[in-house]
């Protein structure tokens, strides 16, 4: 098979070799593996995933689709070490372990003899690498199984030939191929060279393992491959790359999005010990996509000197058209827009008539502010540009996109760009955008030396691609019996599309499809509208994206309706979800559905109901709680998974809130590693509580008013829920896999808000909670 490790490419990666575990392959075995790879790679055609699959996903509609080829993903060295390529970005979900584990499972490889090799950014070779949208397991479970099964088949064929027996008589078991009849056995390492000469089997001829024989999948007993290195400080993130002769840079960027550099005076900066140079960085006009904002770079012998040098710079800026962006005024504008008709994006029945005839109309208007991602690792990247070649080391979620953008930005062929994927110290969507890598590339080109660009936390807070700000207004009409007969949801928020196209005032289908037009309730008259809103800063994907405001609004409204109709929240919720059915979205022009075919991934209210029932059962819904405590529930389908959360909150006399217990039930279909599902959901509760309590970025005079973790606080351990329980729905035999990284966040805040209402009678309709509970 093939091995990726090209010794030249390891330059600057000395520390990364450890996490990638390549160094445990002896030099001899590595060279042999490379030798085996020889003509093999050249001969390898790129195959697309075939149609025989038991379920269809949107994987092949992603740029560059999927590549199912063991010669691209698997290498076996003569000493038996199996190297499996991880081609997606690791930002804490465990994907760098889970995807190779799937291959190992199907190969019947022994995990202790498997090494994981991180791929470069190369989507032609590996297929789509954009690690975003909670898609990795969903799109790659089947392809990775097929890759493993192909490799296993090739090993079995090679063994059968060597023994002169029919291939049906041999079987791969635990890193060996066995011939039961004769008791012969031969290790994967001894078969590697011969297996490499075997033809890659046709995908529809592959026999996948029976899940009941799985050793690893679905068990959660395998720790992440980076565990030892993370706990010993050896794990390599973007900023940990060091190259000989490397310069350190920090950049002063225009404080207003779309602003430009006026003038700068570098005299004082140049006096700072360790500062070597001050230079302009090219910026792109707004909307600037992922291109750099421009500004002034300070180049120094270490990051500390560069930061001090930047502090000493005197810079003037030309703020441009967004210099008036003001969050107070903008909120009023959004509220105003939400109170008037807007673009209709879903319509069933006659909402106006039904609201008019309703016995009562309940209105909920909810405000959710901008959020910054603030991954613990601020953006950082290293670039080494020489002539028409560029090599980048960066914590990017989309190494393929980064490669394209670096090539375009430098005006060089994509083939001349190498993107080395480091670990990501958190991503949450921020690192889907490679602006920081482009900055490093531009500076390295100018300086003709390797450069590391480090964003300070202040840079990160002030120049993020922010989570949108929105007003969500829901009007629900009730008949005399308290049944909801009309539902109008107006959602108004600047769109992510505004970062790419000037004049954008409506949400894109992928945003409308996150909890607005896909709202699953069984109500006769439904209308969803999207009034206009223009953006005045860079808007981007933030973990769970528009699902955060939509789930907040819809699930808060369920709580409000339960209260006015004097019903239990959970009963109200189940009544609104209605009968178990596949939701008919034929009235929606583009249901988007997370890019997945509706046939494999419909909105199934039976599954939605099941997670509600499960969490209610396991989480003790309706249990009696001490005075000042309250229980709240919320459910939401996102990234084609179903998640319900119950929060128990305690609010003391002063309005201080604590969370004694959280229970979450998740139905994410077939899964690989339940232990990592659990950790993602535990983390989602923390992120949900963090954004509910504190999350808010505001603007004045076009500038972000927050700067660091004091004025954009994150939840700390002393405020964390005391217990978070995760209940995973066992998958049906054919349930396709669905998302895990993001879906945990959206139901948390509304469950919390409903719990606060139960505890205090106070309904919070704007986040963050901040001081709203203080008495």
């Amino acid at each position, binding site marked *: 098979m093939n091995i990726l490790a090209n010794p030249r490419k390891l330059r600057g990666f000395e520390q990364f070799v450890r996490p990638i575990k390549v160094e445990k392959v002896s030099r001899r075995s590595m060279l042999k593996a490379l030798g085996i790879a020889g003509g093999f790679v050249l001969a390898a055609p790129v195959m697309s995933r075939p149609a025989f699959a038991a379920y269809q996903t949107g994987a092949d509609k992603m740029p560059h689709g999927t590549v199912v080829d063991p010669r691209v993903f698997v290498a076996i060295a003569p000493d038996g070490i199996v190297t499996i390529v991880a081609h997606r970005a690791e930002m804490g979900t465990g994907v760098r372990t889970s995807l190779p584990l799937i291959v190992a499972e199907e190969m019947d490889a022994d995990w202790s003899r498997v090494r994981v090799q991180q791929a470069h950014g190369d989507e032609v070779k590996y297929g789509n690498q954009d690690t975003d949208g909670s898609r990795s397991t969903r799109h790659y479970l089947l392809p990775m199984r097929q890759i493993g099964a192909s490799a296993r088949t090739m090993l079995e064929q090679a063994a059968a030939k060597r023994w002169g027996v029919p291939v049906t008589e041999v079987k791969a078991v635990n890193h060996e191929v066995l011939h039961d009849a004769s008791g012969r056995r031969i290790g994967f390492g001894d078969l590697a060279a011969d297996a490499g000469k075997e033809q890659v089997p046709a995908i529809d001829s592959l026999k996948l393992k029976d899940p009941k024989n799985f050793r690893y999948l679905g068990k959660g007993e395998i720790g992440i491959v980076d565990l030892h290195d993370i*706990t010993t400080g050896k794990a390599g993130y973007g900023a940990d790359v060091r190259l000989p002769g490397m310069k350190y840079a920090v950049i002063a960027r225009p404080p207003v999005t779309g602003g430009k550099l006026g003038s700068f005076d570098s005299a004082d900066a140049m006096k700072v010990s360790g500062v070597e140079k001050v230079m302009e960085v090219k910026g792109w006009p707004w909307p600037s996509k992922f291109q750099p904002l421009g500004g002034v770079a300070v180049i120094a012998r270490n990051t500390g000197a560069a*930061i*001090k040098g930047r502090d000493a710079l005197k810079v003037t800026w030309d703020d441009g058209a967004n210099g008036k962006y003001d969050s107070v005024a903008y909120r009023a504008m959004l509220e105003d827009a939400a109170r008037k008709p807007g673009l209709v994006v879903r319509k069933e029945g006659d909402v106006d008539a039904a609201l008019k005839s309703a016995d009562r109309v309940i209105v909920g208007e909810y405000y959710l502010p901008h959020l910054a991602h603030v991954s613990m690792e601020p953006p950082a990247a290293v670039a080494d540009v020489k002539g028409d070649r560029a090599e980048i080391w960066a914590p990017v979620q989309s190494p393929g996109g980064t490669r394209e953008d670096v090539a375009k930005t430098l005006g060089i062929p994509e083939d001349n760009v190498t993107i080395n994927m480091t670990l990501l110290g958190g991503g*949450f969507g921020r690192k889907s955008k490679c602006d920081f890598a482009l900055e490093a590339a531009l500076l390295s080109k100018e300086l003709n030396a390797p450069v590391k660009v480090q964003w300070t936390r202040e840079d990160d807070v002030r120049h993020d691609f922010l989570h949108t700000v929105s007003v969500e207004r829901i009007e629900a009409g009730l008949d005399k019996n308290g049944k909801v007969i009309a539902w109008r949801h107006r959602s108004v928020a600047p769109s992510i599309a505004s970062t790419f196209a000037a004049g954008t005032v409506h949400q894109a289908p992928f945003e409308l499809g996150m909890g607005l037009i896909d709202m699953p309730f069984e109500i006769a008259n439904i209308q969803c509208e999207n009034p206009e809103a223009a953006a005045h800063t860079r808007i981007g994907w933030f973990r769970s994206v528009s699902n955060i405001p939509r789930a907040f609004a819809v699930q808060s409204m369920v709580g409000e309706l339960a209260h006015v109709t004097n019903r239990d929240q959970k009963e109200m919720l189940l009544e609104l979800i209605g009968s178990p059915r596949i939701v008919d979205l034929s009235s929606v022009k583009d249901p988007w559905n997370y890019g997945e075919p509706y046939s494999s991934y419909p909105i199934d209210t039976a599954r939605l109901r099941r997670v509600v029932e499960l969490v209610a059962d396991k989480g003790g819904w309706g249990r009696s709680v001490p005075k000042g405590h309250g229980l709240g529930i919320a459910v939401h389908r996102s990234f084609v998974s179903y998640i319900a959360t119950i929060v128990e909150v305690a609010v003391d006399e002063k309005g201080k809130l604590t969370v004694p217990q959280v229970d979450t039930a998740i139905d994410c279909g077939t899964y690989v590693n339940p232990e990592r599902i659990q950790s993602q959901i535990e983390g989602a509760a923390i992120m949900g509580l963090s954004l509910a309590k504190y999350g808010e970025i505001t603007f004045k005079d076009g500038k972000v008013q927050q700067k660091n973790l004091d004025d954009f606080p994150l939840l700390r351990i002393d405020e*964390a829920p005391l217990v*978070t329980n995760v209940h995973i729905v066992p998958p049906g035999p054919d349930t396709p896999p669905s998302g895990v990284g993001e879906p945990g966040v959206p139901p948390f805040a509304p469950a919390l808000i409903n719990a606060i209402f139960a505890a205090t009678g106070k309904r919070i309709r704007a986040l963050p909670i901040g001081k709203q509970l203080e008495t």
Partner: protein
Amino acid sequence: MIKLKINGQEHSWDGDPNLSLLWFLRDEAGLTGTKYGCGVALCGACTVIVDKEAARACITSVSDVVGREVTTIEGLHATGDHPVQKAWRQLNVPQCGFCQVGQIMQAAALLMENPKPSHDQIREAMSGNLCRCGCYQRIENAIHLASMGV
């Protein structure tokens, strides 16, 4: 010329004596295990042990640690088997892992001072260490585990 002792080894520095220990460690000494997360003592990612106490390297200058022993994650345990590190692995604490070095150093310092910390003591001692991925429940459990001897 400033002389520093880091993980038992001598280092010298003839640049700015006010350079923060964090950037000295990472950029000058090549000890990149210690992380940058905020630069102003708000996140704990840069936590190291100076003599026997946890310190934020980002607000400690190189000259502050002259004549003192600095221990970074690279020097916490030769084979990475400090009880805290072992407990962390046993409970699969990390997600992205970026904050974990700081968490581990803080936890190691806590256990030096208080070998059997209570729930409240753990939460208080660890409250300066942020984890955006939200591994707090496991961090607390791992400290309990380490305090019991893994």
